């Protein structure tokens, strides 16, 4: 009892760091269950942004003046902070991009130019977000390679038998999501990487949904690439990370080209600089990279022990409550799951559910969640998805459950 009160007080304190959580929507207090789309930002992140722009702002690299030196240092410190956050071996294995989508596009374009030729194969899975699907589809079509798609089971888990069948000598890379954004499945990526490596195949992990919800250790996973977005980990939009093992990044050609990433430019020929700048053409999102440090620090201050416990508590409570309702059909029943729940109410279109919940101040995501192949598999137009962050509360879930009852009543189920 005392412990519950302590946790509740703690959460109330945490919620104060997120000013937006105090908003009213349609005369109801906002219940924000769309954290898988984007998380909110604590004051600390905004303070870092404002401090940067109002006291330090400068372009980076090669400037000799104090501001340029300071900001270059802070930008490189941000890289080092991310390195230590995911335990990469070297900070030059951390490439700043504008988000997961760009990270994967970079990897798909640049890796396949170097390592994929006609007749080769790339393996992805049926549960990939479009951002980890289409870039490989395009890369394959450009290199006359074949895209192989690993099936998922009815419970929304990877079909590991099928996966093993796909591991032929033609496969040049496997791209798989750490956590499914539409089904909540946590994939056994360590095992997948082990088996892939046993066949000499490198693995790219789409970590967009994982990075904020459990400790990621790229050396322990031994993944070859890992991608994520700042805005899904309490940081600003416009910044993301591509982690890549040095041995691959070194061999891959640049992706974009322009300022800061060259050794020598002449009309005849251009030679490119070393990692990581080779992959960071132009002025990077310096302010966002620096503010991302504040997001990492915020997460580290809370600690993943707390975050994982808290989010498990929320998702388990919500699952229990949903089970007490009739006419709810869940999509995704993985044993190991993230704080993401996809469902439909009877034959009610997810759009209708979303509209009514919004009228009650409850923000859920509806639709295909950029995973059309998953929806095709289940032959549904989409789902209603709720996704939690540590700042959500049991009371919010109760309000959501009441909301579901009202949806059913209004839409006469």
């Amino acid at each position, binding site marked *: 009892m005392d412990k519950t009160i302590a946790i509740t007080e703690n959460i109330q304190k945490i919620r104060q760091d997120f000013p937006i959580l105090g908003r009213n929507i349609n005369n109801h207090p906002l219940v924000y269950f769309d954290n898988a789309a984007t998380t909110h930002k604590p004051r600390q992140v905004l303070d870092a942004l404002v401090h940067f722009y109002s006291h330090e702002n400068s372009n980076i690299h090669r400037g000799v003046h104090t501001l340029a030196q300071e900001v270059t240092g802070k930008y490189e410190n941000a890289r080092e902070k991310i390195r230590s956050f995911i335990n990469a071996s070297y900070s030059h294995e951390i490439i700043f991009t504008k988000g997961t989508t760009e990270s994967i596009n970079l990897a798909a374009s640049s890796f396949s130019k170097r390592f994929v030729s006609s007749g080769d194969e790339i393996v992805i899975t049926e549960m990939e977000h479009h951002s980890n699907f289409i870039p490989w589809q395009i890369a394959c079509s450009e290199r006359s390679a074949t895209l192989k798609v690993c099936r998922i089971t009815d419970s929304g888990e990877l079909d590991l038998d099928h996966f093993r069948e796909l591991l032929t000598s033609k496969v040049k890379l496997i791209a798989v999501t750490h956590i499914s954004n539409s089904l909540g499945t946590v994939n056994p990526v360590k095992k997948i990487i082990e088996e892939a490596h046993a066949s000499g195949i490198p693995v790219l992990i789409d970590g967009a949904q994982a990075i904020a919800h459990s400790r990621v250790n790229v050396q322990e996973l031994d993944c070859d690439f890992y991608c994520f977005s700042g805005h899904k980990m309490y940081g600003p939009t416009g910044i993301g990370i591509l982690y890549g093992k040095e041995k691959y990044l070194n061999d891959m050609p640049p992706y974009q080209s322009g300022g800061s990433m060259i050794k020598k430019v002449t009309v005849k020929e251009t030679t490119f600089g070393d990692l990581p700048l080779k992959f960071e053409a132009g002025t990077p999102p310096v302010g966002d990279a620096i503010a991302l440090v504040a997001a990492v620090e915020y997460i580290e201050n809370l600690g993943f022990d707390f975050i994982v416990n808290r989010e498990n508590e929320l998702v388990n409570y919500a699952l229990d409550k949903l089970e007490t309702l009739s006419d709810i059909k869940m999509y995704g029943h993985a044993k190991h799951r993230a704080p993401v729940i996809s469902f439909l109410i009877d034959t009610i*279109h997810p*759009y*209708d559910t979303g509209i009514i919940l919004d*009228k009650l101040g409850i923000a859920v995501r509806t*639709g295909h969640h950029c995973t059309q192949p998953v929806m095709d598999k289940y032959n549904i137009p989409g789902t209603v998805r709720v996704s939690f962050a540590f700042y959500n509360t049991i009371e919010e879930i109760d309000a959501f459950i009441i909301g579901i009852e009202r949806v059913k009543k209004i839409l*006469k189920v």
Partner: protein
Amino acid sequence: MYTVETINKIQDEIVEEFSQYGDWLEKYELLIEYSKTLPVISETFKTEENLVAGCTSKVWLHAEVKDGNVFYSADSDAIITKGLVALVSRILSGHTPREIMDAELYSIKKIGLSEHLTPNRANGLQAMIRKMKEYAKSAGGND
């Protein structure tokens, strides 16, 4: 001029009807009632071409001309969207192409559903109206 007033007369009736309901809940319930009055598009017209782009839910829209007037039939897999298309269809259906093209749908705002009119609205109400007017145009509104 008289004909456009007819469209507006229907609009005024609808505004009157909705004005009897105070909160969003009752309005939505009425909208759902509307959805049941929609002349449903025949399955053969549920083609890719007749889909309205820009809706999260699917909306199929078909138009036929009878005696110089345009009649719409439609369907949607989402009931609120279906209610919206039924509402607009009740306003525009049965009028001449010219009347439809000239119509200004002020009633939607007055009813208190203007939120659905923003271009970024995933139900694509604006897109539906645009498509209805396009049908009218190609049905002879160019006179």
